[in-house]
């Protein structure tokens, strides 16, 4: 008797955020608003921890299915959890908790944002429930609905900032998202036509090297690449992530992009693994490599702090796409096993934590400075030492220096590249690392610069902008916790890899 497939836990992880959204919508502005949301996120986190522990405890090395409505796979919809999705759920739970804590003070009266909070909280919880539902879904059409929840609520959250740039970015993000989902929906129609079922595992059973499956795979890849923002399709990401409110930028970079990536990995390796080819994966890798170089270069050229971090996301996503060429090929079939997938999974986790920490720290710096220009950050380390420290730690992880999570991820990636004999990816990874170091040190050297004129007069009107507000300690602490998690992940790599390892066995179904 396994607990997961019979218990309340899995549906609760989806429904709890929905409930939180409803309550946030109904009560509106309230003194208890922040408290209620924090307690919801705490409950949600505990639920996820419980689920993870149960999953690890059962040691079934299998995916767990939860049957909704008692109908079973082809007729009804099932929920499914395997190692990868448990890992993503845990990541979502953790980041939800921390960013909710952050937003509770970010959207408080102190920063004149309580009007926005009226919209922020319900949309935020809808986004979280969409993410959770997506990571558990075993049904192709259900994934489409989840993608739409995520896409629409994310676009609405970007628009929350309310200025023209944010609205325009949100509109572009929304249109791209809708286009991507339509491609995905079309692929689902083709899959249903040739397989007669919408359940992912049943599609996987009958998947073949046939023409319709290949076309479906191409359509899914195009649609999801649009949503992931791989290099030539990245144009919407930097403005959207840079113009959103800080907590939203953090979740967008850390999780929302990864949600589409998760689906792509699932289709590419589990569901339609038969239909993929070596050449296609090399193309994806090449796009990823170009993305690394191009994103890093644009980040180096950026003049706004958040834009720099957003371009860095474009670059970091490129690394994850090296997974596709590096994963092992046996008999023309790729599989989500071995060191390449481990590297990718580790990269996803490391990047999520580091990028969230970085966005939060950057948001704090911008609040303290009153404006997002990088040039204005001169000497900020004296006034906001902790936030600069967080920025530095996250930066170390993104560059891939020890002892951070990013280092282990890159190490895994490099060793895999050497083992598989595809040495050309090594050059790309190292160049990307160097470029990453360039743009991050550009910021840090400015922040630490001890230009006496700046340091001595932090309160003087000429340097301190009018709109600067002291950053609340909660917001700094949350960013610091995330940075520490990034470091801790670098020291305890086995834990993450253990969870994700169970993916290997799922593939055999």
């Amino acid at each position, binding site marked *: 008797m396994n607990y997961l497939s*019979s218990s*309340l836990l899995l*549906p*609760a992880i989806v*429904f709890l955020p*929905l*409930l939180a*959204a*409803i309550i946030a*919508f*109904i009560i*509106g502005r309230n003194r208890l608003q922040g408290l209620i949301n924090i307690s919801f996120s705490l409950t949600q986190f505990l639920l996820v921890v419980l689920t993870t522990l149960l999953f690890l405890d059962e040691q079934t090395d299998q995916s767990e299915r*939860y*049957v*909704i*409505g*008692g*109908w079973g796979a*082809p*007729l*009804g*919809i099932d929920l499914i959890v395997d190692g990868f999705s448990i890992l993503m759920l845990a990541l979502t739970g953790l980041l939800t908790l921390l960013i909710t804590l952050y937003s509770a003070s970010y959207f408080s009266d102190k920063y004149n944002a309580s*009007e926005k909070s*009226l*919209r922020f909280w*319900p*949309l935020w919880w*809808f986004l979280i*429930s*969409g993410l959770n*539902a997506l990571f558990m879904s075993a*049904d192709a*059409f*259900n994934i489409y*609905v*989840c993608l*739409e*929840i995520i896409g*629409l*609520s994310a*676009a*609405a959250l970007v*628009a929350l900032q309310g200025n023209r740039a944010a609205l*325009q970015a949100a*509109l*572009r993000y929304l*249109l*791209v998202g809708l286009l991507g989902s339509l491609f995905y929906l079309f692929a689902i129609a*083709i899959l*249903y*036509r*040739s*397989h*007669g*079922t919408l359940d992912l595992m049943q599609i996987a059973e009958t998947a073949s090297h046939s*023409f*319709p499956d290949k*076309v479906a795979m191409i359509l899914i890849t195009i649609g999801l690449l649009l949503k992931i923002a791989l290099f030539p399709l990245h*144009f*919407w990401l930097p403005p959207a992530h840079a113009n959103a409110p800080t907590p939203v930028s953090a979740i967008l970079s850390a999780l929302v992009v990864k949600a589409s990536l998760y689906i792509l990995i699932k289709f590419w390796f589990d569901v339609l693994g038969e239909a993929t080819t070596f050449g296609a994966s090399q193309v994806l890798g090449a796009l990823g490599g170009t993305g690394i170089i191009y994103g890093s270069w644009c980040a180096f050229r950026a003049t706004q702090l958040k834009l720099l971090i957003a371009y860095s996301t474009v670059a970091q996503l490129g690394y994850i796409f090296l997974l596709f060429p590096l994963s092992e090929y046996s008999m023309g079939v790729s599989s989500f096993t071995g060191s390449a997938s481990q590297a990718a999974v580790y990269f996803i986790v490391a990047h999520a934590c580091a990028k969230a920490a970085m966005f939060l720290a950057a948001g704090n710096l911008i609040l303290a400075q009153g404006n997002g220009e990088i040039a204005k950050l001169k000497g900020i380390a004296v006034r906001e030492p902790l936030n600069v420290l967080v920025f530095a730690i996250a930066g170390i992880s993104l560059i891939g220096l020890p002892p951070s999570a990013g280092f282990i991820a890159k190490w895994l990636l490099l060793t895999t590249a050497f083992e598989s004999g595809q040495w050309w990816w090594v050059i790309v990874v190292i160049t990307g690392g160097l470029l990453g170091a360039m743009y991050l040190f550009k910021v840090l050297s400015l922040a630490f610069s001890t230009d006496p004129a700046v340091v001595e007069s932090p309160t003087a009107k000429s340097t301190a902008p009018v709109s600067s507000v002291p950053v609340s300690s909660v917001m700094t602490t949350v960013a610091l916790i995330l940075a520490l998690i990034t470091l801790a992940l670098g020291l305890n790599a086995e834990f993450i890899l253990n969870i994700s390892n169970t993916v290997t066995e799922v593939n055999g179904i």
Partner: protein
Amino acid sequence: MFNKLDIEYDGPAVDKSALSLIASVLVVGLLLAVTIKIVLSDKGHNTGLAPLITQNIELSGVTNPITAVLLNFRAYDTLLEIAVLLVVVLAILPTRDHHAPFFKRIEVSKQNLVLLALQRWITPAVVIFAGYLLWAGAHQPGGAFQAGALLAGASVLMFQSDTYQVNYTSFMARVLLVLSLVVFITIGTALIWFEGSLLTYPLAFSGLLILLIETCATVSITLALASLYSSFIASENISVTDHKHRTIK
């Protein structure tokens, strides 16, 4: 391709950058050729899930197979879909005016006769027809979404002149907007206790439960669609006040 988002009214219809033109023509051509080949090579599953659905239709509590799929077999999808609608309503609804009453009637001196007649005669008919659609959804074409859309259309007609006004941000409206989601979630999770699994209707009550959910869904969908429409009308007034506010500053 999305770099230029034009909202000038009198702009040209086509963005004349050669690159996007060529690329899109290529992609479209490829897409058409490839997919038509799929359609013509008519292999694969011939019936889909139709036999399975007809087999289980007696267990679902309704006889219209589409209602069975939407509200029983794939009820989870429908639940999330209602959430999608709610997301958009949330994103669009203005955040002010919480304390005005939910529904009010304003006496307008200048009446449009045609509109008045429409309101008097067509609206009740539409409401009755929507009720019929909702009821009939169990055994023939119809159901919550169609009924909700019809009612929303009727309400668009009603609020065209300012005789009636609904305040979509009032407490009552918010409760009605989330009603279907709340009922859906409550029933779904309550059934975990009684039947052991999410959204597993007991056979004896399934028809009743589905009708209950559909009724609530109709109310919420009506309100959601009508509020989406009204946001485009009402925001005009709000934006005007916004603008005044800004100039005073």
